[in-house]
């Protein structure tokens, strides 16, 4: 239980997927213009992250690793993620139309979102158990959502700000991201102090 909590907290706050691991920056910059897009993408990322972990984890440890094909992980994982996304899209469209409306259009974008492949690889690299891997994926997804929501708020304020022409557009957005990232540095050391 304690180890679950540690993994969860460190994935959400300390090793935040977007702000300190730099995964999923494209969608972070592209989809934080309004809350609706940010929410749709975040739900889709959490969902795909969990399903993809549940599929890739057994594939790696029960098929690839025993026959010494561990080096094929990149090729296998990216194809599994692409397939999972396709299948999920079809299933959700048939069974939960409201959920499909909320996240359906973001699903195809996820295949090339490096956050998913990145977390799969991290889970293998850290040699987590299955439970830990699932918690770590959930934490990564929640961390992504937190960053998306915080940054959407910041950008909505920035729309009304008067920005010097030199920094208008992407540069000012990146500066804002830098400041948001500074605020997450404050969480460094939280785990050591909480759990000793």
């Amino acid at each position, binding site marked *: 239980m304690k180890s679950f909590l540690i993994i969860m907290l460190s994935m959400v706050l300390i090793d935040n997927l977007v702000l300190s691991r730099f995964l999923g920056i494209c969608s972070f910059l592209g989809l934080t213009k309004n809350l609706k897009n940010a929410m749709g993408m975040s739900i889709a990322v959490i969902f795909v992250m969990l399903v993809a972990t549940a599929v890739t984890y057994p594939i790696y440890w029960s098929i690839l690793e025993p026959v010494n094909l561990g080096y094929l992980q990149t090729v296998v994982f990216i194809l599994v993620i692409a397939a999972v996304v396709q299948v999920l899209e079809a299933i959700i469209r048939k069974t939960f139309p409201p959920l499909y409306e909320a996240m359906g259009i973001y699903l195809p974008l996820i295949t090339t979102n490096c956050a998913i492949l990145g977390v799969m690889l991290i889970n293998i690299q850290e040699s987590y158990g299955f439970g830990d891997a699932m918690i770590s994926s959930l934490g990564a997804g929640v961390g992504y959502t937190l960053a998306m929501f915080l940054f959407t708020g910041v950008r909505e304020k920035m729309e009304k700000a008067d920005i010097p022409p030199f*920094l208008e*557009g992407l540069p000012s957005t990146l500066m804002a991201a830098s400041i948001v990232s500074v605020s997450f540095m404050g969480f460094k050391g939280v785990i050591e102090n909480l759990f000793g």
Partner: protein
Amino acid sequence: MEKKKSAGRELVKGILKENPLFVLVLGTCPALAVTTSAANGVGMGIAATVVLILSNLVISLLRKVVPDRVRIPVYITVIASLVTILQFLLEAYLPELNKSLGIFIPLITVNCIILGRAEAYARNNGPWLSILDGLGMGIGFTIALLFMGGIREILGFGTFFGMPVPWITEGGLQPMMIFGLPAGGFAIFGLMVAITNSLTRRFYKRQPLETMDRAHYPGSVSPSTDAIYEATEVHDGPRPSRTPDPSAVPEALTKPGALVAETSDKKDESEEAK
């Protein structure tokens, strides 16, 4: 002669005019994550360049064989295989670089530059031009990473390619740790994009509107990156304009002297009350 000229242009365009990182804003994840030092930046740049050239070559050779509907899975498989080969080579010959780049080597697979060039260029052009395009884009990416890594290493750690920079260490300037951390990465990237924007505007006489739709998207990345998201974006009503609604602004702020008149009126009243 004509062909030679165009080949040269394919090679050069990736360096400034269509720099993949600073102008097209592709491949941001590795660019921010590995540029804590100049050596890492260049290593990442060269690794991505090798994959880019080879994937452009393979995809351009396959362009008449692969049916349109399954092209993306085919491209991804080709790229992932090339990345796996590259990972083997790095593990064997440059184990230190492989260790410091970590998971960002396998993540070259999902680097948007490579899939983007396959989709936008190699699919429609012959192998020779595709190799040149890959080389040019790769050089542009490597230069961009060298700049990011160099600036961050000098400011953050006071070294350049591992060698101490005298005017930081001896000049009494303390290295600022923040530039080696994620926050500094975002800030330096922002600054580099701003500088590249003003450079391209000067050299290519490009209007800002061409590179980004600033009137509608104050935070716009660039049309090439926005396009994917544009299709998915949920529009509810017209976009809020940046100029405030005139009726919402108090009159005192628009008419000269109105504010003064109002306050002086109040003063009169308070004097009368006395």
